[in-house]
């Protein structure tokens, strides 16, 4: 019960034989807290249990839908998407695909990323292309030319350097970047 009992904890060479140090002395919790979305400072404290994905990082591969509430006023807006008095419906690809052209860019991006491997991902892809956005195969983001700048095509014609507007799906915003664009990387 005295100080000598702490020796196996303190002496590094004894650690692995007597106690599991990750549980006794523990570990630096910075990365664990970071993985939970907990910031160091108290001021910026945000709740994390409401969006808790899993007790383990390895099984937290995707976001989970939190509690949310859609007020009545969001559901009875007349003439949304030119639908007149009724709520807009999307029940038939044949009948409804043209409505995609009524969505704003951000809505298209949302649908593209939200529904992988679906009809709507394909339809939003086609619509964004119509609006001169191009999808980068490796970065997995959409980009379009900055209208203010003319890009310089590289000798050989395989790429161009210029200024582009990217849509960042993590930060959910458009941002301008100088970039070397390889033509075979976009679709």
């Amino acid at each position, binding site marked *: *019960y*005295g*100080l*000598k*009992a*702490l*020796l196996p*904890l*303190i*002496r590094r060479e004894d650690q*692995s*034989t*007597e*106690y*599991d140090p*990750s*549980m*006794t*002395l*523990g*570990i*630096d*919790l910075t990365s*664990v*807290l970071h*993985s*939970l979305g*907990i910031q160091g400072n*108290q001021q910026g*404290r945000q*709740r*994390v*249990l*409401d*969006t*808790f*994905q*899993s*007790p*383990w*990082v390895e*099984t937290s591969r995707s976001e*989970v*839908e*939190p*509690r949310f*509430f859609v007020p009545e006023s969001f559901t009875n807006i007349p003439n949304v998407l030119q639908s007149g008095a009724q709520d807009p419906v999307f029940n038939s690809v044949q009948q409804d695909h043209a409505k995609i052209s009524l969505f704003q860019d951000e809505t298209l991006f949302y649908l593209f990323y939200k529904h992988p491997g679906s009809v709507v991902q394909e339809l939003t892809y086609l619509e964004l292309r119509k609006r001169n956005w191009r999808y980068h195969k490796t970065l997995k983001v959409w980009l379009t030319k900055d209208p203010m700048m003319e890009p310089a095509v590289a000798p050989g014609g395989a790429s161009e350097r210029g200024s582009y507007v990217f849509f960042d799906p993590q930060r959910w915003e458009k941002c301008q970047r100088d970039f070397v664009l390889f033509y075979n990387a976009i679709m």
Partner: protein
Amino acid sequence: TNQEKMFLVFTEWVKLLQRVPENDIKVTVFIRQMMDKGVINSTDNMIQFTKAAIELSVGSFKESDPTSEVFIATDAFSKLIVKLLVLQDFTALSRSEYLRLMISVITMVFSEDQGMADNSFNERPYFRLISSLLCQWEDVSGHNFIKIQDQQFRNELIEFTPEFYNIIASFLHAFQPIAYPGFSFAWITLISHRMFLPKMLSLPGKVGWSKLILLFTDLLKFMAQYTKKNDVPDAVSVVYKGALRVFLAVANDAPEFLVENHYELLNNLPHVYMQLRNVILSAIPKRMVLPNPYDPQLSIGDVESCQHVPNVFYDPVQDLKNLKKPVDNYLRIPSASLLRVISTGIFKADQQKDSGIGYDSVSVDTKLINAIVLHVGIEAALEKDKTTATAIFNTKSSYYALLASMLSEGTTEVRFHVVQAIVNQLRYPNAHTLWFNYVLKNLFLSEEWGPSFAEIQEIIIRTLLERVVTNKPHCWGIIVTFTELLKSSECSIMTLPFVKDVPEVEHIIKHL
């Protein structure tokens, strides 16, 4: 057969939900028809239907292509449960009884499934059923069931909601890892589910807290049972990592839960989990700003929050058993005979195995010791409010005397566990931290121990040191107390023989 009919009806339900949105009138009509046609109009039929639904859901999961949608039937079943709770008029059975009945049937099927010799049990569909049930209940109950038109129904459902969560909690308690190890990882994921844990933490009047403590106790008991010091099975080590993350998340979102329940949580926490112990004890009330514990000008008595008595959700007096009277009587009027009763009453009938740092067994009832120490602290704080500070900040007071006497009369083992219990109360700035800081300092510097002096001092230093050599967090009260002892002019710790005897420790203390 009747069972086949049940299968058919459930299958139709699953198909219906894939074809129409859930608020479509056809969904309500289907349920109405289920009731009218007697599918679920009696307890027997209810049981049979539930059994059919869960068996089909689990069966369909097991047979589905893993890359496809494997939970369609399970999700449909959970939707049905919510609809049945919300759409029916409850006359014969209450809503609670109805839900309990369905859960009991699910429990039965679960037990049978996991007991099958073919090892085909998979926790995922059962996990998904409860997870979806929680999500769908959340959806319908949002903003006090605003989606429900009828005001009376709405009121009933609002009243029922705490019951709903407590029934789920009871189900989880029955399926704790010690009982159903094949469900352990699903279980831990469920108790920390985003639609369960924050809800239970925030139910009005803290009505979810008792069940939550029960569940956390289940988790800690499982970890305690199978944690050996140096041979932790890999799976248990993974359990620990998950538990740590969950506790950190709770410390962030609802620190008051850890603050008010530290006693019960620590009663079941294996001693070797030193960092986790610190995580629980370092929880501080939201919005409290801690004075810098390393500030050389800091005087703990001047910290304003040290005047506030912390809330203790579970009164440890309930755990005093047959020592309640002797302890309370001693606090009124100390006597040697009462002390004898207490000192002998803290021993267990038999020695038990325990995984501690430096010890493998325990012959005292540590829970009882923790209860006594905390109870004395609570009573001391009450006394201070009733009378004056000098009534308790006084080595002649019965409060101090009881703890000091337990040390002086006790074996080394008793001394260790009493000191541990005292140090457990050195947390954020509050009235208990302040008083136990006073107690510990005086115990350390007391000249009344005689030959036991060195042993008691060593136990105190060991107990404080083990809580600061760990990775952070460290408790504010521990740092402040240890700092005071290190700076004490009355006793230079560095000169103490038992410190000099252990060069590694001497080195650390010098560093501190």
